[in-house]
């Protein structure tokens, strides 16, 4: 019988089981479950949001129905959270165990496999169906925290090079500006461009459905792997659905992670037959426009300087009373 592992003693048994199989035990999970046999923990699994992780079954109990039992319990523990879909990362050699349970492969990578339970991807693509256009289309994935003249410049340059340009706005809500505000400002900011469509990324680009670090031996390059999964997902699941042949990205002068992401993008998308075009950033007074600069100025409430960095639509929002909450958040925190 699958039970919740709540006591420290039980969680320690889970840790031992996970570590015995060469994985790392991660402290952050919403629910941890396990199965006991003769007083000993023989299987464990955890769920964080809609990601299953740390699924370990002792070798002499593998191949039976335990996997299904563990996952059933994890899904039941989530019935109130109205998720459409669940994700799991596993080793490529274990993918068939999940496929038998109706999981579908999203990304196959030499080191790991990302699978989805439920029709999340298909439903997402179906919702966007009206936006699909034939031709040589392009894509930009942006957080737009908030939308600046730099973004606008990037969009205008890119839109001139393709038939239809798709702007994927990162849905994950962990930025200063909430998702609803970010996407609204993007929509307003590009409304004058006829061949640009704005849509959300859902779980399928730059989302929290990233690779859990426990899966790797210490020292492995988690960051690169995470980016590779994200980019493969884009290349294999999103790009074909929207006839995307080119991905545009701005050069990154500041952030190391973003620069690494761009380098990985060029290499990996080329292998998938998608061209990456780097566009240099628009500068104002010799300094590239960036959203982080805008947030810094906003924190100081230097509206006269913001004037030259953001389009009128964004400026109107920054000046409005709905921005009060954002000011509050900016004062309270650091980078993002």
């Amino acid at each position, binding site marked *: 019988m699958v039970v919740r592992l709540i006591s420290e003693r039980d969680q320690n048994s889970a840790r031992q089981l996970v570590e015995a199989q060469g994985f790392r035990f991660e402290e952050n999970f919403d629910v941890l479950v396990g199965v006991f046999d003769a007083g000993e923990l023989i299987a464990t699994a955890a769920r964080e949001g809609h990601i299953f992780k740390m699924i370990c079954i002792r070798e002499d109990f593998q191949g039976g*129905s335990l996997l*299904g*039992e563990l*996952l*059933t319990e994890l*899904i*039941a523990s989530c*019935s*109130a959270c*109205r998720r459409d879909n669940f994700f799991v990362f596993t080793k490529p050699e274990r993918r068939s165990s999940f496929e*038998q*349970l*109706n999981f579908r492969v999203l990304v196959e990578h030499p080191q790991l496999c990302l699978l989805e*339970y*439920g*029709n999340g991807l298909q439903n997402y693509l179906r919702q966007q169906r009206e936006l699909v256009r034939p031709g040589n289309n392009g894509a930009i994935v942006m957080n737009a925290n908030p939308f600046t003249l730099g973004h606008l410049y990037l969009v205008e340059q890119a839109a001139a090079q393709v038939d239809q340009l798709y702007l994927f706005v990162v849905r994950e809500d962990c930025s200063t500006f909430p998702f609803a505000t970010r996407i609204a400002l993007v929509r307003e900011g590009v409304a004058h461009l006829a061949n640009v469509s704005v849509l959300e990324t859902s779980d399928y680009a730059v989302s929290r459905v990233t690779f859990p670090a426990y899966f790797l031996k210490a020292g492995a390059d988690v960051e690169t792997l995470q980016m590779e999964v994200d980019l493969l997902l884009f290349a294999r699941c999103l790009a074909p659905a929207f006839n995307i042949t080119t991905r545009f990205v701005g050069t990154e002068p500041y952030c190391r992670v973003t620069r690494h992401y761009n380098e990985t993008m060029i290499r990996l998308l080329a292998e998938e037959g998608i061209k990456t075009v780097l566009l240099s950033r628009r500068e104002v007074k010799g300094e590239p426009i960036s959203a982080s600069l805008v947030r810094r100025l906003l924190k100081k409430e230097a509206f006269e300087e913001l004037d030259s960095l953001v389009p009128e639509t964004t400026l109107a929002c920054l000046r409005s009373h709905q921005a009060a909450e954002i000011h509050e958040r900016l004062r309270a925190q650091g980078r993002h």
Partner: protein
Amino acid sequence: MEIKRAVQAGTMQSSDLMVFIEPADELEIEIESTVKKQFEHLIRAQIEAALETFAICSGRIRVNDRGALDYAIAARLETGLRRACS
């Protein structure tokens, strides 16, 4: 009856199915099955029969099946619908 909340019933085991039900403005049925090619129409018929019994005309019903027999499908649907409507 009316679907009032999001619920789940069933398991992921072989010969069983997982049912997810939630409120929606229209009626939506999604079927996922290891034997979808052969039996989708029969699974759909089971769902439609259950919806008729409970007089439900809107909601989102998702079934993830692993080759359950028809009475198992009927039982899981009934459980799910009773939970969702209570």
